[in-house]
């Protein structure tokens, strides 16, 4: 079936199967940053924004995206890089496989929460697993990022 979506600001038409998940659609369309880590909505690696809200692209059908606005990390490259620099400076990206989904959640959190506490940050990001870093370095980078005024 055919859907019309906006991906990273560009309107595009895509041919998708009725049972196709958005993560696969996006990867097939060339957005390699979208990763699948679990298939059970536990790991957060596949997080993209749908109409500005962080969404697990492994748990949503592409067919439901008709007319919607999708953002991957490629679509917020400048802001993502600003945070990635802090993450990398902290040494907290390690294997990096979870980073795009994690960064999309961090950027969404920055939009959504004003002046969050550590507990609020941890709560917001809990759906994003990471097996390498132990989370501490990511938290250090997030706190630095939130202090940066736009």
């Amino acid at each position: 079936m055919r859907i019309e979506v906006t991906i990273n600001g560009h309107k595009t038409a895509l041919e998708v199967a009725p049972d196709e998940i958005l993560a696969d659609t996006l990867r097939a369309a060339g957005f390699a940053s979208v990763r699948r880590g679990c298939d059970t909505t536990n790991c957060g690696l596949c997080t993209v924004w749908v109409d500005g809200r962080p969404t697990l692209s492994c748990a949503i059908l592409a067919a439901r995206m008709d007319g919607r606005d999708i953002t991957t990390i490629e679509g917020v490259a400048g802001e993502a890089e600003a945070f990635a620099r802090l993450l990398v400076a902290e040494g907290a990206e390690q294997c990096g496989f979870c980073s795009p989904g994690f960064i999309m959640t961090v950027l969404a959190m920055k939009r959504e929460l004003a002046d969050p506490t550590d507990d609020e940050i941890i709560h917001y990001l809990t759906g994003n697993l990471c097996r390498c870093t132990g989370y501490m370095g990511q938290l250090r980078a997030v706190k630095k990022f939130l202090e940066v005024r736009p």
Partner: protein
Amino acid sequence: MKIVGKGVAKIDGLAIATGKPLYTDDLVPANALTVKILRSPHAAARIKAIDTVAAESVEGVACVLTHKDVPQARFTLAGQTYPEPSPYDRLILEDLVRYVGDEVAIVAAADERAAQKALELIKVDYEVLTPVLDFEQAIDHPAVVHPETDLHCNFDIGHNRLRNIAATHKVEVGDVAAELAASAVVVEETYYTQAQAQAMMETYRAFSYLDHAGRLVVVSSTQIPFHVRRQLARALELPASRIRVIKPRIGGGFGGKQTAVAEIFPALVTLRTGRPAKIVYERRETFTATNSRHAMRFKVRLGADRDGLIRAIDVECLSDTGAYGEHAPTVFSVAGEKSLSLYNKARAVRYAGHAVYTNKLPAGAMRGYGATQGCFAVESAVNKLAGALGLDPSALRLKNIIRAGELDIYHNRILGSASLDRCIERGRELIGWDEKYPSRDLGGKVRAVGMAVTMQGSGIAGIDTASAEVRLNDDGNYTLLLGSTDMGTGSDTILAQMAAEVLQTPLDAIIVHAADTDVSPFDTGSYASSTAYVTGMAVVKAAGELREKIIAAAAGLMNAAPAEVTFDGAVLTGPAGDRLTLAELAQRSVVGPDRRQLAGYASHGSPVSPPPFVAGFADVEVDKETGKVELLDYVAVIDCGTVINPNLARVQAEGGLVQGIGLALYEDVRYDERGGLQTNSFMTYKIPSRKDVGAIRVFFEESYEPTGPFGAKSIGEVVANTPAPAIAHAVRNAVGAWLTRLPLTPEKVYAAMTKQPKERTCT
């Protein structure tokens, strides 16, 4: 030092963090076949017949391969140096399946949909056999996991196929029985450590194609490209010269990718069809059909005199290697070696037992590699001994631990570097041991602290070898060629830091290339905590050789002796004050006849495996109503020799500690009564999330390892070991009961505390 010791950013950090297409699945050719595996639903069964006709007729299916279509040379998937100590107990496909998830058939199709449809149409007639699922019942069980007669071992590892014994090991120094009999205090306990999933975020994956010369190229997310090439050659009966293995960026490994679980399948499909092929394991497959940490049982006896000097350590171990014996003998031996070597005041130590086959997921390598398991058992016993003696457990350790310059009872070698005593002292202060030990009742909850110490190795002594090449390029930059694999640790970066330090050049003047078996110098791979230490030494030697060649070449041009030329990394200065820039020298080394591009090349293997050490301290709260353990604070003080990059070392340590915390509190591999894995997703197998870990605090107490690059030892594995025993100790101090089976779930803690309510005294 200008670059070593600095927390510089990872050279590939920004690209991987921002999602650039650098990983295996990002690089697959567009026309690659999708490979899928039909897996056994039975823990043990003989395949009587397979009908693939319907599957082959599905549109888009390129091939369906069964046990009748594969080479018959047995091999091991363990990523170890040849000749591997792991038994050659595998075929690519066999008419016997040994666990739920074992491979039955390989399907390759134009797309995932066709491959999936074909899988469902394969008809298999199984004769279901009785499995052996309980590893404590495996020896001499009527069900034999490996009845085949062509199984092969390269060494005498005490393999006994008909008794389900994959490996047997025994080390005894001194007279353990006599020392135990003479000990004033003896503690005895049996401990169990569970299987643990590596659970790296990028699941197993590989793709393959034939190049312009008809050679097989395999691109894989692996820690061991050179071992993969050798394994493929053996399993596919193909000369290794016809195979090239390339490792792109890797999304985590933790030892899992030291076992080549996926590469053979697309490689075989490419050989059969001539077409590119890829396989990407789903998470469920990664849990059910790859490998995990070995589950173990330890019977520990410790004997000590009244003053708390440990005189005898006796450990009997049983290890569950599952259906295949990858890493069975070596993980087994490391569990004893790394836990008994710590306490060198002992007059006698013994470590013995078996690794056994069962009809379950094969075990393999995982961060800590047996030392994690052994550490839980022996450190728990040491804490119990402290209780029996009425001594502070930190004081007991300071009395007994090995120190630099002392002889290690297990290897009979002098220890080159150690600051474990300082790690213990500092950790005590940082956690607030004196104020918090052993516990404080807060009403509904009890707060308590616990501790453990550990050691690991740095590379495999006498076996592993790494090579490195550094080339001076025509424009004065350098290329560092490595065969090691950075799986996210930042090893490419710290190795470049070492080269830059020797060559006195900025980090961005070094181009790092790793790893491609056609191009890279040989390296055994990134495992056994070897990269910083073994490959690092190869880099230091290679860069040193190049530096000497640069100076010699400049001296030749200046008609001077090399000793008269100084080199500051950018400019060479001769005795008469004549100057030559490195860029000029580089250019002149590649222009015209009789020139030679300058390069340094070195190999390094170490006769010793110097241990890094950690002192770990846990601060927990236990809910008396539910038994739930909440980790509030974890302090680890680490001796990894010289810290090459403090930021990367710190984060690597934090990550390893959290994996240890997962082992201690959450991660639990469970099977149903028929041998099916119940914990086959992140829904059912819980790795720690951000909310589960409390505060993790990492500190370094540097020592100087004389055999390491710039004094460095390893850090990758040792950090995973202390959380389980330290948290178990804290739980004991909170609720008065020892827990001897991991993980420490609320059910177990509650059961233990209600069973022994009176015993809440200090240890």
